[in-house]
């Protein structure tokens, strides 16, 4: 694999060559029509960008030429100079020199000399006549045409490619199953080969869609600076893990969520400098934006050392808003209480916002993460700070899922939301307040028959009784927003990577299903959406 530096250099080269092509085009337009403002503005912009990019990459001599050219174009734009005569000749030479310099970077050669050109550009600025040596005319004759090694591609085309690969994988699984049923060995080996090829194809397409998290994180120093100065806070931002890679569309979807979390942290999370001093903290707050990989997931964390979340006021508010009974609220641990912050509408509670400084629109952040099948966690110590963690899949194409059977049909639940699977006997289940409860890994988890939850309308669930539970029960413990729920299913099937197709219209308004997948047998398998399922349970419990 190429080094990061190599990759940056290739990207620089591609952009610089493209800029050079555009410069050549625009300067010709300008020659034809010296009043062409669009061409002039574009040239000014291209020079400016090339200058910054070149300097950032350490190609200072290219930056220098671009800087001088930018100055002249600026003067033409402000009508102090006119694009004609010897000035035009020098500018053409300038564009050609830039092209030669960029090519030299690409070929790893020494950059051509540009002193004469820079002198001429300086003379033009001073209003003197440039020194032309007449050689420039030859330039055209031995000009080489260059094509870039990189292609720009619309993300739409990559999306299409990924969808096709998804379809291909579904068909491949079907063919593999059929070949085993038919039992022809030539067919089986062809199917096995197809399997490997499509696997590789899938990873290649997924790889082509990966971008550095840094492309998003690097936009935040500016955001933090602006918000901090507006709020009169002092904040130092530290970035890490910029080179972690993630699917471009996932990054796109979390952009607003991350922006929201960072703004929130700066404007509400941190105390004012005076408050910090009083609390014995350094006046300057520390904000850390970090990315890391954990197994197949990417973790993005926003950590502040601000005032933290006041769990007790959140608990009070949750009871006031009727999200939980007073007795139940007392028993909830801190993380379960903090999970209320992500409840839709909870953010509207002004008091909480003022006391804890949290909660504005966190449900929106949550929804964005849910739509990716990701998780949003929050940890906080009052007075010491808060960390939001976004757990995101690296890629959107394939998801690990648990397959199970209910009423002789297969269903899938994404592993992202599956805590564990247990098989329990009736003795392990207890009825508390009309709900079945089970102790799973030292925790009391409500358990519900998935069949009952899915059917029998939208009214409250009938109270559970021990009598209805007969024999061994296969239970999937799902976890959403720190809320665990056990689902009784007929039978566990297996764990499998599935390609989720979005639910087709008009059924897409049923939020209970995150999509469908086709199994190797050709059977349609519904993929349950755990967030919606949890909401349904909360709405239907007594």
């Amino acid at each position: 694999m190429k080094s990061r530096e190599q990759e940056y250099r290739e990207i620089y080269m591609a952009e610089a060559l493209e800029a050079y092509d555009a410069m050549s085009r625009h300067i010709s337009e300008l020659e034809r029509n010296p009043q062409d403002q669009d061409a002039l503005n574009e040239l000014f912009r291209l020079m400016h960008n090339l200058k910054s990019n070149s300097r950032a990459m350490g190609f200072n001599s290219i930056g220098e030429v671009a800087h001088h050219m930018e100055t002249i174009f600026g003067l033409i734009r402000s009508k102090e100079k006119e694009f004609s005569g010897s000035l035009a000749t020098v500018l053409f030479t300038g564009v050609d020199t830039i092209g030669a310099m960029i090519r030299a970077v690409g070929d790893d050669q020494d950059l051509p000399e540009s002193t004469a050109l820079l002198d001429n550009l300086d003379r033009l600025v001073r209003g003197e006549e440039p020194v032309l040596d007449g050689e420039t005319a030859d330039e055209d004759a031995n000009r080489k045409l260059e094509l870039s090694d990189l292609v720009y591609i619309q993300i739409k085309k990559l999306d299409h490619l990924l969808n096709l690969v998804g379809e291909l994988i579904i068909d491949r699984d079907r063919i593999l199953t059929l070949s085993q049923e038919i039992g022809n060995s030539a067919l089986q080996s062809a199917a096995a080969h197809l399997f490997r090829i499509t696997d590789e194809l899938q990873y290649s397409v997924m790889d082509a869609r990966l971008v550095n998290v840094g492309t998003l994180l690097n936009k935040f120093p500016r955001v933090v600076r602006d918000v901090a100065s507006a709020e009169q806070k002092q904040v130092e931002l530290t970035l890490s893990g910029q080179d972690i890679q993630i699917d471009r569309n996932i990054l796109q979807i979390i952009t607003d969520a991350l922006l929201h979390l960072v703004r929130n942290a700066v404007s509400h999370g941190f105390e004012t400098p005076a408050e910090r001093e009083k609390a014995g903290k350094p006046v300057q707050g520390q904000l850390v934006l970090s990315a890391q990989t954990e197994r197949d997931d990417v973790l993005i964390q926003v950590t502040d050392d601000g005032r933290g979340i006041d769990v007790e006021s959140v608990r009070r508010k949750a009871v006031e808003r009727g999200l939980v009974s007073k007795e139940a609220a007392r028993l909830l641990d801190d993380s379960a209480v903090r999970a209320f912050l992500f409840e839709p509408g909870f953010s509207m509670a002004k008091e909480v916002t003022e006391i804890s400084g949290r909660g504005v629109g966190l449900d929106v952040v949550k929804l964005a993460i849910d739509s990716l099948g990701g998780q949003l966690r929050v940890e906080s110590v009052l007075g010491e700070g808060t960390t939001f963690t976004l757990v995101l899949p690296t890629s959107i194409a394939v998801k690990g899922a648990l397959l199970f059977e209910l009423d002789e049909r297969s269903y899938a639940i994404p592993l992202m939301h599956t805590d564990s699977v247990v098989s329990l006997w009736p003795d392990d289940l207890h009825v508390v307040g009309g709900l079945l409860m089970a102790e799973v890994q030292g925790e009391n988890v409500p358990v519900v028959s998935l069949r009952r939850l899915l059917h029998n309308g939208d009214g409250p669930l009938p109270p559970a009784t021990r009598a209805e539970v007969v024999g061994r029960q296969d239970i999937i413990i799902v976890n959403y927003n720190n809320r665990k729920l056990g689902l009784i299913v007929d039978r566990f099937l297996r764990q499998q990577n599935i390609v989720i197709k979005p639910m087709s219209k008009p059924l897409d308004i049923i939020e209970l299903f995150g999509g469908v997948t086709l199994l190797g047998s050709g059977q349609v398998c519904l993929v349950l959406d755990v967030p919606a399922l949890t909401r349904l349970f909360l709405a239907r419990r007594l």
Partner: protein
Amino acid sequence: MADAEPTVDKKNKPDTIIQLIVFRLGEEEYGLRIEQVKEVTVTPEIARMPKTPPFVKGIANLRGDIIAIIDLEERFRLRPANEELPALSYTLAIEAKDYTIGIVVREVPQPLSVPVSIIEKAPEFIQDININDKYIEGIAKIDGRIIIVLDMLKLLTPTEIMQLQPR
């Protein structure tokens, strides 16, 4: 399809022949313009979908497309409540505005060519039956048969289909 546009106002012009796909629902014959029908197939295996109205039979895999299958007999109560669909039925894949949907019928649908002029606007009596007249493009009378021509695009808007329990 501009030349096959409806209907009444073209009465005086030379007759355009249109093709209908004719199928039976309950005791009546219904027709659809052939351009609205993507394909006719033996009903594939249907996965029942919880939280949908009963006339939504579920979803099925039609050559890699996952489509919803609906039962218009049940939707419009054209069949006694206790009677089920036969084991072997047919599905018309209909191209609605931006998606495809399947309509399950009990007998093999048949194509039929009719002149546009014989399609008449639905008379009053049609309101006696359960199909709301706004879905009906007209009535075709041919060789003693009466065929109710449906306007699928109106019938198959998502809100029409999902009007019950949008959850």
